[in-house]
């Protein structure tokens, strides 16, 4: 799809999502997926800070264990950590074996074929609440336009966290962050149950959950909660067909 049309479609889709009731994890997943298409990167994900200031993974374009692992490492070090701490974008950081900046993160990212990383801050009234992380396997740098688009998507992600709350005091924001992060934990608990019940891998477990939620017009976190509390069984989830070539 031509770039401009793609951006317009992305904007419209995100706006449509945000005007109604929505599930924060689902919207951030959509955002991550669209980011990969719109900005020509190979993986994207969002990390949020807990009220206590610990960065945690919330949503990604891929739920494969290898990608999740790269976010796990970034609870301690990595582009997200630096970006969050300083509130400044990191763009076109080429990964190399001699790069000592992130001694745990860089080798793992390289091992998975990533060549460059970018991290855009999610900022709200002077407070950085998280970071949008982008990974790229192929050569080349992000253009200035790409960086602008990526920052725009990071800003949309920030808006999504607020979920229509009109007051932005620390207490309200903390509650929103806490709920978003707790939702991710519920989803991880659900993924474990689905994997054990059906034998599928964690990536497919997430996608089955998400597909079923969308098919039945149910919130992703609500469905995950019902599954974890055993109101619905994993085998009753809709099937999900893995896209060809993935």
């Amino acid at each position, binding site marked *: 799809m031509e770039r401009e049309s793609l951006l317009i479609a992305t904007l419209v889709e995100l706006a449509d999502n945000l005007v109604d009731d929505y599930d924060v994890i689902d919207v951030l997943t959509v955002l991550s997926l669209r980011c990969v298409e719109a900005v020509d990167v190979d993986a994207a994900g969002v990390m949020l800070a*807990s*009220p*206590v*200031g*610990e960065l*945690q*993974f919330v949503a990604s374009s891929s739920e494969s*264990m290898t990608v*999740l692992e790269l976010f*796990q490492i970034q*609870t301690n070090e990595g582009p997200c950590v630096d970006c969050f701490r300083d509130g400044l974008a990191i763009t076109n950081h080429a990964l190399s074996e001699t790069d000592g900046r992130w001694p745990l993160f860089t080798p793992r990212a390289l091992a998975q074929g990533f060549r460059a990383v970018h991290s855009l801050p999610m900022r709200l009234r002077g407070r950085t609440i998280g970071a949008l992380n982008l990974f790229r396997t192929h050569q080349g740098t992000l253009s200035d336009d790409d960086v602008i688009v990526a920052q725009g998507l990071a800003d949309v992600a920030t808006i999504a966290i607020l979920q229509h709350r009109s007051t932005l*005091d*620390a*207490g309200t924001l*903390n*509650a929103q962050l*806490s709920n978003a992060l*707790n939702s*991710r*934990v*519920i989803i*991880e*608990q*659900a*993924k*474990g*149950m*689905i*994997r*054990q*019940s059906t034998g599928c891998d*964690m990536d497919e477990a997430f996608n089955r959950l998400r597909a079923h939620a969308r098919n039945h017009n149910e919130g992703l976190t609500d469905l*995950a*909660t019902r599954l*974890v*509390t*055993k109101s619905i069984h*994993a085998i009753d989830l809709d099937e999900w067909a893995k896209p060809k070539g993935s």
Partner: protein
Amino acid sequence: MTVHRLLDIFTLMERRERESANGFALCAVAAEFMALDGAGIAMISDGDDLTSLCTSNNAAGALMDLEITLGEGPAVDASHGDANEDTNLLKESASNWETYRPEAVALGARAVFGFPVRLGAIRFGALSLFRSTPGPLNAEQDSDAYLMASVIGRAILATQAGGSHESLVGELDGASMLDFRVHQATGMLAVQGSMSVKDALVVLRAHAFGVGCQLSELADRVVSGSTHLDPDTRVWVDDVESVING
């Protein structure tokens, strides 16, 4: 920041432990740590029933008994997952605590706050706090409350998993709880052992204590399949190959 505040909690806990023989000093620690007039920890027992785990002083005890009896109040609401507050009990407010409010005022409270103690879909209970003067929590107190709730959750888990007194202090480092494999492993175990996720987490924690390894390390083994709970005997079984190969 977090490290400093955790050390503060630790210091207060140590001092409390020396002063009294009472095991669960976390209530008094919470009140002092956050410079409030009282704190209480409610625990969810069978089904949805709330019981008081501990309270920091007589007033906090009376307030906790009040809201448990009435079924309305900050801990009750928080136990269902919503952080909440009433910053001025003397004023008509949005909170639906018609009966609780005047009774709480009579007991000396002017502002009350409730925070969930949870891990994903696992609900341990709630932390409730009160002040004898109206007004909201400041930003630091609000973030401290989340830290306290997190510590309390881990302490409850460790106690239920048969942890020793020393291990409770070890629980102050919450890094394992940020590890997505712990949550996935919890879900897997819930299916393997045909138990609730809460019981599964306790079983996971207990086994980590038993074999002397970090919770995240054990979780990694569960997720990779090198150890599992036998569904019939509910005994832990290590995959032989991984035992040999280490």
